[in-house]
């Protein structure tokens, strides 16, 4: 599946105080690779890489000079026969982890990646045990006396 929304922008929602830059899709036709399959790969990779000088934009969307350089670099690496992972590795080795819009699965990012799973399991488990315990308690609540009374009432009715 293609990424749901593959683009980032200069902030606009509540766009009141933050610096907003005039953003527009910046990939130019002269940068495109001739092979549509390779070009598709380049677009996919571009959406994963951050424009370092922008406010939360991927290099696919940014018109900054640096983003253009990176796009060209990604395409050069692809033409040189790199796999997607190799391209990413190459870019990270030059620009650091900040360039990745999807943080890698490292120990430092463990809390980030694990939290959704832990929360859903933890929350689900909590609900399961809380309701089970409560049901048990409530069911056990009628004493013999009350049972007797209930029986009488039922018979009378």
């Amino acid at each position, binding site marked *: 599946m293609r990424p749901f929304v593959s683009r980032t*922008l200069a902030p606009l929602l509540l766009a009141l105080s933050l610096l907003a830059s005039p953003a527009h899709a*910046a990939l130019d036709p002269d940068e495109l690779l001739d092979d549509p399959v390779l070009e598709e790969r380049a677009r996919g990779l571009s959406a994963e890489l951050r424009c370092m000088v922008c406010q939360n934009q991927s290099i696919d969307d940014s018109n900054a000079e640096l983003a253009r350089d990176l796009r060209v670099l990604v395409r050069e690496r692809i033409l040189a026969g790199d796999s997607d992972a190799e391209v990413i590795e190459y870019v990270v080795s030059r620009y650091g982890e900040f360039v990745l819009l999807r943080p890698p699965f490292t120990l430092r990012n463990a809390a980030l990646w694990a939290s959704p799973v832990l929360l859903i399991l933890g929350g689900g488990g909590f609900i399961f045990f809380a309701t089970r315990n409560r049901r048990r308690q409530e069911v056990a609540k009628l004493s013999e006396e009350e049972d007797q009374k209930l029986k009488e009432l039922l018979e009378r009715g």
Partner: protein
Amino acid sequence: MTVEIGHFALVLAFVLTLVQFTVPLVGARIGDERMMAVGGPTAVAAFALTLLSFAALTYAYIVSDFSVVNVWENSHSQKPMLYKVTGVWGNHEGSMLLWIVILAAFAALVAWFGRNLPATLRANVLAVQGLIGASFMLFILATSNPFTRLNPAPMEGRDLNPLLQDIGLAIHPPLLYLGYVGFSICFSFACAALIEGRIDAAWARWVRPWTLAAWLFLTGGIAMGSYWAYYELGWGGFWFWDPVENASFLPWLAGTAMLHSAIVMEKRSALKIWTVLLAIMTFSLSLLGTFLVRSGVLTSVHAFATDPTRGVFILGILVFFIGGSLSLFALRASRLTTGGLFHPISREGALVLNNLFLSTATATVLIGTLYPLLVEAVTGDKISVGPPFFNMTFIPLIIPLLIAVPFGPLLAWKRGDLYAACQRLFAAFAASLAVVVVVWFFVDGASVAAALGIGLAFWLIFGPLTDLALKSGVGNVSPGIAMRRFAGLPRSVYGTALAHIGVGLTVLGIVAVTTLEVERMAGMQPGDTMEVSGYTLRFDGIRPHQGPNFTEDQGVFTYFNASGREMGTIISSKRLYTARQFPTTEAGLRTHGLSQLYIALGDRLPDGSIVVRAWWKPLVLLIWLGSVVMMIGAGFSLADRRLRVGAPSARKARPAGTVEAPA
């Protein structure tokens, strides 16, 4: 002079909100009716004063009084009148003023409509609301005064950020703030309930309309912002997982969870503690959003540190309210009694499942938004958490929830029958499956994701329709009776169905545009043509155009349909706002049904041709129309008989639902 009156009115309002906070709170504590009664009039007066203050600033904008720093920085005498007015809140100081006007307005509404509330509850709600108002008024007066003068006054203003010179600014922030701030009422109600140590089903009934109203506005605000970004930024994206967007999405997710848990509380007296916690969390997330956007912390922790006064002040407010309310919660929550029992397979169970998934989704987005800040603060490293992360985590969390949506309303309270619900939904399921098959085989270029996603969207539309049909007895009674039953259904039943259908429509739009969008890009000379999804675009050339405060190059396109018939012209332009020398792109849009043709101009290439990007965006309008349907649904629920003003009178409602905690 007008400006000074505005400033003075704000100071008066600040003092009044202090009274609104203290006197009723003490009154409720010692049981003094006269002291409790102070809350209402002070809230109304504080609202009138903030409104006066806002009017004064607006006046300064309308007459372009550049002796006011705020007007000079954000306005221009040549700016169209609409943008002079909307420019009032198109900047930090003015938007905070709008924030407190809306906050005071909500307090005044509680004072006005809350006459049937128990006196102590009303007094405590107004007191908490007063404290929030006082904090933010102090924030404005101390760090962000919009009434500061400038001497000597410059001849001309510096103009408003051109991206904001749009009708979107007139609608988006006010709607968003109505939502954000509307949740303050739920927060105040929750705090009041904790202060009193008592909460019951009637409480949920009083809170629900405010939640619904706030949710309605927030939905509209987010949708409007999304559409604005779509046409203004020039490449037709509609959601970017930008931290600023997440700041508005977080209270929406939490508020949606609260809407659902409050139903359980109202009908079944269960989930009380959880609902109170959600009410606190929702407004806390609104405050967090305000902090993130206002403090500049998002750009970088370091940017925040260079001018920390405002940020630290809001952070103080944030810590005070979140910490205070959570402490109150920790102290008092054990006093709130737990309510009715239910089987896991039941309406309550379905709503708990909804809450589990929505809260996890909220937490995921929250952690993703804050994680880079956290890492930078702790280790000094900079990392990015962008759309790929959110898509990978949020979507898998939300899909099971969406699949479960049609089941909820079909399950009975206390103990439901899942098998029977499945049987009833069989037709809806079969119809959705048919949609999957049709998309897979007949829509050109459709992927598995497109087919399944569109099937899910139709499932979300057919499911609620099935619910409506069953509840009006279609198939069991004659069509005439079914029609009459349908008309007689409670409005909240329509509300639920419409809101869920709205979600389905939005999902349909999102799936269609992300999976079936067609993109074309080329350098074009006048006379060149480009083919986009069956339409042919002919580039006729660039013509200059002079706007009131900008110049623009308009690219003129003539477009033809597949059979070669001329369909009209589309103008897409590049603007330069002269005062700030700020370029923007104005996309050319043409709507066909629910789909749009979207054209944006790029740079000039060395050979003299212009880069043209064109998209065919199938069903894109459904993304926002779905939100409108959700809003209409919320409106129906709001109009339900049981929520109407005066319907749950204090005396009548209490004996029925109250479970008083031992004092």
